[in-house]
């Protein structure tokens, strides 16, 4: 009993430290937490949107197209049609943009960073809020600015979903889609980026119940064995 309480206390301390101890970025902008399910449907939807709207500039250089087949249960045809958008894409090779980085820097003002690990680096809250914080700013070269990332060189790719707002939040041009679809598009992107930053999450969640279940059985057996011997003592 005492041991279980002690372990519980320890676990609680670890969880407390995990939540409050890690590095977070304190911004003036309040970061919103996306509400989404992480499953194959949301990841694939997000991935298709990414391939069609983001892959032109942002590579995902650690994700090979063929791993989408094993991780997400897709076939080669589907992947070729929906994901392999850049010119020169090869099935066994990674999701790279067709845009040469030096030219990208010249055309866009900065080289669009590789986004494979972005969800781990920035955090999903940051990316979600960032995607939804674009506002119209005639002083920038693209006409877009962002509350979360001031003077960012990236334009608002999602403008048809978000509509065009000014820095106070006033709507200049309405969105072509409703807010539900806007929410879904952004959360799907988050799901996709969450997946790419650590694709092992799919296998981990699949095997976890078996591994932990096995270890619990082992621990119980070991405890019974211990108790059988320790009857001698005391």
């Amino acid at each position, binding site marked *: 009993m005492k041991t279980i309480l002690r372990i519980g206390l320890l676990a609680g301390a670890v969880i407390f430290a995990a939540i409050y101890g890690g590095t977070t970025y304190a911004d003036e902008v309040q970061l919103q937490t996306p509400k989404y399910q992480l499953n194959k449907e949301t990841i694939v939807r997000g991935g298709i949107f990414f391939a069609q709207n983001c892959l032109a500039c942002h590579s995902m250089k650690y994700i*090979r197209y*063929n*791993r989408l087949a094993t991780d997400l249960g897709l076939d080669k045809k589907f992947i070729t049609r929906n994901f392999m958008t850049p010119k020169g894409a*090869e099935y*066994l*090779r990674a999701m790279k943009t067709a845009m040469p980085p030096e030219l990208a820097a010249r055309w866009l003002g900065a080289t669009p960073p590789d986004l494979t690990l972005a969800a781990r680096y920035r955090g999903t809250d940051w990316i979600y809020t960032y995607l939804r914080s674009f506002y119209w700013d005639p002083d920038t070269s693209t006409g877009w600015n962002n509350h979360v990332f001031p003077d960012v060189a990236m334009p608002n790719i999602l403008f048809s979903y978000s509509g065009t707002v000014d820095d106070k939040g006033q709507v200049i041009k309405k969105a072509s889609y409703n807010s539900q679809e806007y929410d879904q598009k952004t959360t799907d992107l988050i799901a996709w980026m969450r997946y790419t930053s650590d694709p092992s999450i799919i296998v981990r969640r699949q095997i976890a119940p078996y591994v932990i279940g*096995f*270890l619990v*059985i*082992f621990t119980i*057996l*070991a405890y*019974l*064995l211990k108790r*059988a*011997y320790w*009857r001698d003592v005391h």
Partner: protein
Amino acid sequence: MSAKQDKDEKDSESETLDRKELSKRRFLTAATAAVGTAGIGVVAVPFVKSLEPDAAASAASVVTVDISGIPPGGHITTSWQQKPLIIVRRTPEMLATLNQVTAMLKDPDNKVPQQPSYAQNIYRSRKPEWLVMMQVCTHLCCSPAYDPEKGSVTPTWLGGFFCACHGSRYDLSGRVMHGSPAPTNMVVPDYTFIDGEKSVQITGLEKKSKLC
């Protein structure tokens, strides 16, 4: 005397308790050991698998070669998995010689599986014009020279490959000739044509084939 009797009684009591306890301990020890060993065995699997060629190595094994610039009668040599690969665009005259050398060949019908099934013909290729082959002598792994010129290696030479290391000779489809120390025809890898005949993509080797 009575103390000894008491002691004996106690001993026999504890003996029966011990026997039950003993078998329980033995069972639990065996069970825990078995489960533990099984666990270690299962955990060892991913560690061993991590030593297998990774996705990068598998991807590197797929190579695309641009053949659009080869004229008829021409060839290019390149490498695949650090081994020499030759692609020859054979002319009709060269293809005609393939039927003339049958008696000189150890395995004219490609019975030994040194090529994919679509290459089990006298051309040893998908399309008669194109030879795609690993330029590795099946004797001891040297790279045989490509000698298409008639009469170049011997006065009756119709064209093929000659290995300078130990004198193995092959025809223009890489089939080994009698009198050569090499035992089998040179290996034709698994390949496909891309974009009509603009490039060839090498994807691997037939499982049973042996380079050298």
